[in-house]
């Protein structure tokens, strides 16, 4: 199987879905001639034409609203939010119009919003955020956050084929820092299924996105010390695959939850609560979280490095847990 980058996997998913279904089209800022801020849609305008690759004015609420309208007409819009940070400008359309539509009127809104998110590129407080919790908390939205090229391609295809609004968080650091095997044939990764990326009997490490890479490094280091970490990649944040999470926790009895988003009311809090409610008596230690602190994402490299979770910090938490 060929090895490709996370960015290439996303590009392939978009290309193939557009090629297969002429109702799929793209909307966003600088996605046409320029090929997108991260060059994901480079070459799309030439192939699919300006009806299907639409450069929009700077108006996130406007073009997300327009995508909702087109989706109601049976089209399959895929919006590129240039940086996930700017999704706040479209928040109202997403949580009030798109998310509640099927519940109120039983009319589906097959919409995908691609949101490049996350830090480690020293891009400061407005180009580095992880706003996934805003959407997990809003009923009616599906939220995905792939960590590998295989998952990125399969989850994006599944998102485009899903009849509901899906917020697809693609991590900017992974674009060029994640490579992996992706089969040439058509496949999807179903929404709502976590993936045990590494099996282990001692501690469950539950995470997603760019933290999966860090978790792998940490798990390898722990293995050298004789502690086997089971790495659960949540992949879809809503609907959350609690079965896979709880099965792992029952097996290991110890849990570390890691995410790059701030801790307060993050998805880690939800996962911790589910574990406490459902498998408390299997636990051999308190549930532990390692996340970003409750501050904006800082700009200067030492500040951002201090802010972000990483393999070293994960190892420290795992070591504490192992000796609990």
């Amino acid at each position, binding site marked *: 199987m060929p090895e490709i980058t996370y960015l290439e996997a996303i590009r392939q998913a978009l290309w193939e879905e557009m090629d297969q279904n002429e109702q799929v089209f793209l909307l966003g800022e600088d996605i046409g001639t320029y090929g997108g801020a991260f060059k994901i849609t480079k070459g799309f305008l030439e192939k699919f034409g300006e009806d299907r690759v639409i450069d929009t004015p700077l108006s996130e609420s*406007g073009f997300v609203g327009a995508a909702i309208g*087109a989706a109601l007409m049976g089209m399959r819009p895929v919006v590129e939010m240039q940086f996930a940070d700017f999704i706040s400008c479209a928040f109202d359309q997403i949580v009030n119009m798109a998310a509640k*539509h*099927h519940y109120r*009127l*039983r009319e589906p809104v097959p919409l995908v919003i691609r949101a490049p998110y996350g830090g480690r590129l020293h891009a400061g407080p407005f180009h580095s955020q992880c706003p996934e919790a805003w959407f997990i908390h809003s009923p009616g939205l599906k939220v995905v956050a792939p960590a590998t090229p295989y998952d990125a391609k399969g989850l994006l295809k599944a998102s485009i084929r899903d009849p*509901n609004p899906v917020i697809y968080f693609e991590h900017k650091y992974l674009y060029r820092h994640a490579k992996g095997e992706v089969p040439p044939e058509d496949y999807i990764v179903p929404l709502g299924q976590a993936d045990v990326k590494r099996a282990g009997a001692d501690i469950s490490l539950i995470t997603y996105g760019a933290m999966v890479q860090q978790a792998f490094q940490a798990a390898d280091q722990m293995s050298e010390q004789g502690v086997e970490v089971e790495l659960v990649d949540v992949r879809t944040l809503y609907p959350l695959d609690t079965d896979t999470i709880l099965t792992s926790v029952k097996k290991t009895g110890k849990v570390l939850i890691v995410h790059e988003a701030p801790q307060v009311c993050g998805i880690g809090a939800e996962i911790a609560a589910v574990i406490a409610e459902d498998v408390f008596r299997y636990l051999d230690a308190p549930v532990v979280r390692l996340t970003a602190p409750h501050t904006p994402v800082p700009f200067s490299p030492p500040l951002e490095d201090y802010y972000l979770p990483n393999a070293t910090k994960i190892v420290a938490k795992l070591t504490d847990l192992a000796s609990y």
Partner: protein
Amino acid sequence: MIEGTVVGLGSADLLRFYYYLRLTRGLEDRVIKLYRQGRILGGCYVGTGEEAISVGSACALEPDDVIAPSHRDLGAHLVKGVTPNEYMAQYLGRLTGLTRGKDGTIHFGDLRRRIIGFISPMADGIPVATGVALAFKTRREPHIAVAYFGDGASSRGDFHEGLNLAAVLRLPILFICHNNQYAYSVPVSRQMAVPHVADRAKAYGLPTRIIDGNDILAVYQTTKEAAAQIRGGGGPIFIECKTMRMRGHAEHDDASYVPRELLEEWRGRDPIQKFEHYLREREVPEDQLRAVEARVVKEVEEALDFAEKSPLPDGPEALEGVFAP
């Protein structure tokens, strides 16, 4: 306009306009009464005095055109095929309402009738209607989208973003503003420092028309012409209908902040009385007018009866339908 003759309209058309004007007012008056009696749920939002905008414009559209109405557009819903029964059931939170009790008041739509459902944040329907128009343009379908909104909504970003997007992409969409001079308690002079909402649209390069929103024939004729121009590939058009909100923002609001003289002045320009006067001048027989009124009274009472006899949801349905299967 009303003194003249609108080309192509026969007496059947005129009676149809009259029926929808009367039906809109009849249903809303009934709902106001129910509100006062404590028989409905939640707030009560009506478009008294603004019926000509909604009815006149919707009557000028083709069946496959899609509308995104606002909360004072019951008339447009009715013209598009929403039944009085569904409206009453919706207001009373019944299973037979268009949202099966999931949402209330005028918060409904139905794509089978080509209506985008209204939601509370004002102007949100404008970008959505723009997207409907985008779908029509992409698929080379000959339909247009129509977005309705008020003067207050024109201050929101979604108004500006929607108009601008429609303009740069030259989409087949018609924007219809009810300038009813008040957004809740805020007069239009505190909403914007330009005299007309249409001035805002001009900034995006849209052709604009400013008309008397209480004159159904003016609304009909202007919409008809604009729709034809849009369908011909002319790009979006903006119509500002000058009118007056004759009641509070909703029925809990007595609108004591509105000068009485302003209301009195507009009471004399009531769109239904104005149209009746026109019909009489056109020598439409009185018994035909009375027959329409009697039909409306009957339909309103039947709708209320239908709604009150309709079941309420049980409760567990609250969990259903969050996602499409």
